[in-house]
């Protein structure tokens, strides 16, 4: 299982297909090689693409820091029928432009013998590009990924499995929040995804606008989230409860609230993805069977600690007991002298804080975007339903299963561009077989 520490070379082949109209149609059938020459002393002339449609290739060796362009590599472009259309050699910038006669599908083949000796490359040498769109169509993909093929399946599995555990723990925090709120108020909160985004954006604002270090920003974001949960309960959900608005109506209110928040986020935060100031890229540490970046290890530890403390707290403390009482029978709890509104307020604060932490960890793990939480909403629902709506341990178990399924699924044939599908199919199946979830009690489903 131990691998020799050979340099893993990743070559990034960026294919840029620019289709300029008009000239393309009149271009002759005869293949015109690119103006790029391997030994061009000045990159300037080679940077100008040929008139008409062409395939643009950028070859970069990602194993060095910063990535260095790979010059002098021959690339051959062939049409779908196998006819050679053109040939190009990368210049000092690692770029090559090859004219193509018309739109369609083309194969780009990299001549391995022309690669410099110190560049190791063992991926597939051919790539297909579909030159269909008007204007700049930038396709980027890593040839080096194919080199992973030689990594044993067990190791790939372990890496995906650890990714799944990390992801499962992150959505577990959000799922626990959702489950707590559902358990006490019976509200299926469709704005829960926005609470995740709220935590992430709060982290970003604390980090970038107020200049806090990321770790402090996370703490601050959790506090802000807790306050947000308190405000929500005070000004939205409690008045609705007092007004006697039904659960289904409240569910639709939560949809409206979710849409409202989501576009407020987009309004103020913009549509782009943004990174925090620290821990953006980290090298992965090898732990034998799997490798993790330090920040990923930290995320896993933080999530485990918070989840354990919360769950033990909920089982041991008076608040936890009160919450279970309210969850079972609010009227009876109230008549036994429990302040039901106070318990529900505590649940909103705790649930939103946990969800905010989940968003903050996601922000560290990748990037911040206005709809990152909304994209996770259904996975969180799937996790909670799978484990059992309203049960605490069920939410955790469900999240771990969904998280692992999400990351490991692509190894077993689920297309990786739509890996949510596997988790959502499980959600439907579990409703078919055991609707109360793995740990749920049958009477909960009514």
């Amino acid at each position: 299982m131990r691998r020799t520490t050979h340099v893993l070379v990743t070559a990034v082949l960026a294919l840029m297909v620019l289709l300029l109209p008009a000239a393309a149609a009149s271009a002759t059938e005869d293949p015109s090689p690119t103006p790029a020459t391997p030994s061009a002393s000045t990159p300037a002339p080679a940077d100008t693409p040929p008139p008409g449609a062409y395939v643009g290739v950028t070859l970069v060796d990602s194993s060095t820091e910063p990535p260095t362009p790979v010059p002098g590599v021959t690339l051959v472009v062939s049409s779908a029928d196998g006819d050679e259309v053109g040939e190009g050699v990368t210049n000092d910038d690692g770029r090559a432009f090859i004219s193509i006669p018309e739109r369609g599908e083309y194969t780009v083949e990299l001549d391995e013998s022309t690669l410099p000796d110190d560049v190791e490359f063992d991926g597939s040498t051919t790539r297909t590009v579909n030159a269909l769109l008007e204007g700049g169509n930038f396709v980027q993909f890593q040839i080096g990924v194919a080199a992973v093929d030689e990594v044993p399946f067990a190791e790939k599995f372990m890496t995906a499995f650890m990714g799944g555990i990390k992801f499962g723990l992150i959505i577990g925090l959000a799922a626990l929040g959702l489950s707590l709120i559902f358990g006490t108020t019976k509200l299926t909160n469709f704005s829960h995804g926005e609470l995740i985004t709220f935590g992430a954006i709060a982290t970003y604002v604390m980090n970038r606008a107020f200049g806090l270090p990321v770790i402090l920003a996370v703490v601050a974001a959790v506090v802000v989230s807790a306050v947000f949960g308190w405000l929500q309960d005070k000004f939205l959900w409690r008045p609705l409860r007092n007004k006697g608005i039904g659960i289904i109506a409240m569910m639709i209110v939560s949809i409206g609230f979710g849409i409202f928040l989501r576009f407020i986020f987009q309004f103020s935060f913009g549509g782009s993805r943004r990174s925090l100031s620290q821990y953006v890229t980290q090298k992965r540490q090898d732990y034998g069977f799997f490798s993790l970046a330090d920040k990923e290890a930290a995320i896993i530890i933080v999530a485990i600690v918070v989840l354990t403390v919360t769950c033990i707290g909920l089982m041991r403390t008076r608040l936890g007991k009160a919450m279970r009482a309210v969850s079972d029978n609010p009227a009876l709890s109230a008549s036994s002298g429990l302040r039901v509104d106070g318990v529900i307020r505590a649940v909103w604060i705790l649930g939103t804080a946990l969800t905010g932490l989940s968003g903050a960890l996601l922000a560290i793990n990748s990037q911040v975007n206005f709809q990152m939480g909304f994209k996770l909403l259904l996975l969180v629902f799937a996790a909670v339903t799978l484990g059992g709506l309203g049960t605490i341990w069920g939410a955790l178990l469900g999240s771990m299963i969904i998280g692992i399924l999400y990351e490991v699924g692509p190894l077993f044939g689920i297309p990786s561009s739509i890996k949510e599908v596997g988790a959502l199919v499980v959600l439907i199946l579990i409703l078919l077989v055991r609707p109360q979830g793995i740990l749920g009690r049958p009477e909960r489903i009514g």
Partner: protein
Amino acid sequence: MDFGTILSSALASALGPTAIVYALAAIGLNVHFGYTGLLNFGQAGFMAVGGFGLAVCVVTYDLPFLVGILIALLATVVLAIILGVPTLRLRADYLAIATIATAEILRLVFGAVETKDVFGGSNGLSGFGQAFNELNPYDRGIDIGIISYRRGDLWTLTVGWSLVILACLLVWLLMRSPWGRVLRSIREDEDAVRSLGKNVFAYKMQALVLGGVFGGLGGIVLALSQNNIKGSDFSTNVTFYAYTALLIGGAARVLGPVIGAMIFWFLMTGIGSFFSQATGGSDPLIPSDIMTDTQASLVRLILVGLGLMLLMIYRPQGIFGDRKELAIDAR
């Protein structure tokens, strides 16, 4: 500020193809939610199956247009049955989660790179409307001063609004029949209906199928009106906008969803046009440090969310609804 343009674009949108699509979707939701109390949050999935059913049949498998329509509607029926079997026996929020998940699965699969050969990937499918366009009896568009439609749109509008009228007629006839009364009583008290010996599951299933087919018709009209269909046309927001339209007009009213869809799109386009004018130009009404034109396009969406909340809190019966009839919280 040119209020004439705002008004005409808002009117054109309120009577246009988009309003028809949402009216049909909302009529379907009215059967589900308004009359039967089923919380279908996956109407976008039904629409997607309708639209893609047609497009895949005609483009990918080269079948005739009418066969495509039939298969598309059949596919929505099948989807309703597949969805209904596991979830209709469960509590309302389970149906909500299962339907929204199914709609997302469909949207992801229809838009995926891996299924590009069948569903066209992110560019979607186009070129299935030829047979439909050939039937177009108009030789030019219409222009009555304040609003105008092109020739193709006019034909879509004729067919679309006819479909809406027929759907309303059908819903009206069905809901005053004994069958419709059973549906309403299921909404009010399922156990009572069961104790009267009715097969509640079968009635719910029929309602789910009927509303799903209306949704599928909406998807077909959408596909035909824009001559293209792709997975991203059917995000979950589509369902939620249709709900908003339904709740504006008033659930459990035959014309509620239709009026609601028209008002919804009148406001959406009107507000959008107002803010784009207010922030555009060399001397904008709203300075760009307060709001850029990208942000201006989001204001109407923020208002949709706010509107849906306020509507549900203060006037759940919408404009025409009867609050006593629609005690939404049956369960």
